[in-house]
């Protein structure tokens, strides 16, 4: 691989990591949802992210050209080799936390994938055009939930406010650019995440205003995901997710 291919590979794996880690978190709700329909919804959103991860990984494996599969990328890398942004790996906590994170990333992906669907790389553009339809649908579900929880009981509002405090430390990283992403912006393959920030801030601020929640703007507080520096939670997630392939390498259906 030449340098530009290496950059593309890292970019794709990063996007795949974001998706597979969030997918795994959402799937932890399976059979534990607040009621049956919500249980199905959480699993369905998880499935959409899993599909997204597969598409990014398949393409990454093709770019690398060493005959690796999506499974090799998912199951044989260690914590420090995972480059997902930290917001995706935070534990599911309670339903309010899960839904507020979902709302934040839904808004982000609706804006980000819109731009990425115009990538000069045809495959990146096609994956994004597919995924954005799903994210728009996810947002249709996460918004009413935030509204309902914020305006519900004293307890539901407290839980949303607690989640907001926690998540505010992590949303800023969504707009952080890695060096390899920056160089891909020059060729029109990637998108400058910073461009999206004002739109994201504005959208979230407006939306929160309807629930009388003050929100000024996202700030960069904690970062490191793209460099493989994670919270303590990722290792535990990987031990769960990778257990089978680590114990029985290459096991297939």
């Amino acid at each position, binding site marked *: 691989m030449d340098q530009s291919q290496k950059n593309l590979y890292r970019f794709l794996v990063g996007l795949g990591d974001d998706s597979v880690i969030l997918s795994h978190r959402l799937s932890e709700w399976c059979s534990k949802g607040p009621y049956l329909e*919500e249980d199905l919804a959480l699993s369905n959103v998880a499935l959409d992210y899993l599909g997204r991860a597969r598409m990014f990984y398949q393409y990454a494996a093709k770019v690398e050209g060493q005959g690796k599969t999506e499974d090799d990328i998912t199951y044989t890398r260690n914590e420090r080799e995972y480059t997902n942004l930290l917001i995706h790996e935070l534990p599911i906590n309670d339903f309010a936390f899960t839904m507020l994170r979902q709302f934040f990333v839904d808004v982000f992906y609706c804006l980000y994938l819109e731009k990425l669907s115009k990538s000069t790389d045809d495959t990146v553009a096609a994956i994004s055009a597919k995924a954005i339809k799903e994210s728009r649908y996810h947002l249709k579900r996460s918004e009413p939930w935030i509204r309902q929880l914020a305006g519900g009981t004293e307890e539901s509002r407290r839980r949303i406010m607690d989640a907001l405090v926690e998540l505010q430390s992590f949303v800023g990283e969504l707009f952080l650019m890695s060096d390899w992403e920056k160089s891909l912006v020059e060729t029109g393959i990637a998108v400058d995440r910073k461009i999206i920030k004002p739109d994201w801030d504005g959208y979230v601020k407006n939306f929160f205003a309807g629930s009388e929640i003050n929100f000024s703007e996202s700030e960069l507080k904690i970062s490191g995901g793209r460099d493989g520096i994670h919270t303590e939670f990722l290792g535990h997630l990987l031990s769960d997710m990778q257990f089978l392939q680590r114990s029985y390498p290459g096991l297939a259906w």
Partner: protein
Amino acid sequence: MEKIIPTLSPEFAKRRAYRNASPYKEIWDILDNVFDPELPGLTIWDLGILQDVLFNGIIYTIVVTPTYSGCPAVDQINSDIKIELEKFGYNDVNVEVTLSPAWSTEMMSPEGKAHLQSINIAPPDENNKVICPICESENTQVISQFGSTACKSLYQCKDCSEAFDYFKHF
């Protein structure tokens, strides 16, 4: 109340014109026997995921586009395509999954929409007007944005009280 007559979407019209112009009519026709594993009776043509039949002089390549990126039925459909074509002596067949153009419910055939209706699934509507497939009332409400599969959401009819699946407009 009048039965809903599904109209032809431009996307589907384009697909049908393409199929009619294809020199591999026999293959397209054989593939009319391949069904979506999660929607009994709905063919992959009617669902809109069958996109193309290509031939390089040696082997046929069947091009399909997934409904949702995480659709677990994709692998099953790919193997069903190969099994069906094998029955007619086409042993060397390649199935390719394409992401572009992204699947949309506009690619569905009117027959497919009518079939959904007949198995009590409300077909996709571009204005998301969801009509009860049992009593045809327009007085319906969403119960959950996600139903039994990623492509459906759950509704209830406020007149006849029946809960039903709505095939999301996508």
